[in-house]
């Protein structure tokens, strides 16, 4: 998985490309842990994301919890497959999907 990072002051954009699963979730977790300090607006771009597993959902939940405390988090360009995962797991209710 490739993560493209674009930070602009307190705005952080992360574009994910590839598969977010058990093997790649720690990569995103580490990236968030490192960069999310002081960020008030976190945007995740899923346009190039092919697959999302429960390990990936866990990282998204952690990020959502952190951002609930210090600002907001938006996920954009969610494709149909991943939207279905969000709906089945109830994540659609707690995430802000634009």
């Amino acid at each position, binding site marked *: 998985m490739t993560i493209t990072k674009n930070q602009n002051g307190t705005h952080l954009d992360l574009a994910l490309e590839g*598969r977010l699963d058990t093997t790649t979730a720690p990569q995103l977790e580490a990236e968030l842990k490192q960069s999310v300090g002081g960020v008030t607006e976190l945007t995740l771009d899923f346009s190039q994301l092919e697959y999302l597993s*429960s390990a990936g959902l*866990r990282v998204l*939940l952690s990020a959502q919890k952190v951002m609930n405390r210090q600002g907001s988090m938006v996920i954009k360009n969610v494709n149909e497959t991943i939207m279905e995962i969000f709906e089945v797991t109830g*994540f659609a209710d707690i995430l802000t999907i634009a």
Partner: protein
Amino acid sequence: MKKKNRRLAVVMVASIVAVIVILSVIVAATGYQQFTHVLERQYNDTAYEVAETALTYLDPDKLEGYLQSGQTDEEYDAILARLDELVVSSNCNFIYVAKIDETDYMTTTYIYDSVNPATGFSRYEFGYVSRDTDPKYVDDLKHILTTGGRAEKYLYSYTESGAHTTAGLAVQDSTGKVVAVIGVEKSMTVLYGARSTYVRWVVSIAAAMVALTLLAYLLWLNRMVIRPIAEITGEAKRFANDGENPVASLRATENRYEIGVLASSILKMEAEIKQYIDNLTAVTAEKERIGAELDIATHIQASMLPCIFPPFPDRSEFDIYASMNPAKEVGGDFYDFFMVDESHLAIVMADVSGKGVPAALFMVIGKTLIKDHTTPGRDLGEVFMEVNKLLCEGNGEELFITAFEGVLDLKTGQFNFVNAGHEMPFIRRQGRYTPEKIRAGFVLAGMDMTRYRMGSLQMEPGDAIFQYTDGVTEATNANNELYGMERLEAVLNKNAAAAPDKLLPAVKADIDAFVGDAPQFDDITMLSLEYKEKMK
């Protein structure tokens, strides 16, 4: 190893001996040549001095006359007598004066010839003609006669009678014309003896030097090279055998050449290898211990899931079968089924996010909480709300569980269920499996205030339910394709008539065929419940 060292020493000594011997031979040969050359030169110079002296005795103007007339006179006799004296006093072999035929320089007509009686030869009388001049003297004779100077080369001969040198000078008359040649042959008596003495000395001194040098070199070689290397080799061999640290340092470390560095490096390397092996041993032991504990954990986890089939052999109302194939040693998936009371059967299917030990521990908590809170007649939504709250407390790792629980009333066929973010189940009605689109709540342990609502559907005898985890639909083949809902639905309907304990292996076989050699990333867990008849 020792054998090799010895051979190394032999090669080193042999090469040194060879070099010294070659050097000695070269020095001796050069010395011998130089020595001979100097002696020859000395003798030749002496012969020339005699020739110069003899030349003063002659009356060159008369020589032509003697030859033409064939007559000698009193003056000739007087000169011959003086030459005879000179040949003895100067210790020469011959002094002769002769006319050389200048057409071929091969014909010699003797005018005077004085012979030293000690040689045992007799003189050539006046007018004696010799035609057998050695061709190698021709050039020198020609040079003497045409230039009036000395021979360009020395004239030497080494015969059985001994070594000789000859001086040759031109005899010129008062007009400067060369009329004859004067030759003086001197025996180089001392040459042989002196030369052999010289060679003996050189050889014995060289031999003594070789022996001394060799002895000194061998001692040095032994002390500075052979012994330290043998010591290092021995140490390396010892370490290779027992792998223990050396008792004492090596003497070779004090060596001031590269061998000292080698010895220190060997010791350093041994210490590091020892440390490395010790570490490795400790790590391996630890790993084995963890492995053993993981085995136990796997066993405990496996034994927590109901695994005796059929579990309720005296129940004719339903048939149930479940299976789990973990991706790692301990997985995060679990299933469960149990009788809530006499007429209510509960089934649970869940998946903890993450893998390995943390997921397994969380699974144990989740499974226990769900079973404990599922009491007869309780609303399943309430059960999940309470379980969720308990799971959210102290969930530092931020794990969560997707879970589905259903309770079947065996008397009425009413199937109540609650879904926390889990996959939708397949229901078989009239012999056909279709995915049951049910509303899902948020996952367990995600947010502590999440609310869950119980759903309900009606099952008739002959209906069945198939529940699973995402390890089934998201099994991935080598081309990164997912197994997916369509393939699952197809295989279920292909085996629609199969009993639960035949259906699950058939689905698993289909997944395996799809995945091929690609590794299994996620646990694969399935449960099938067939409602056979209403409880009376």
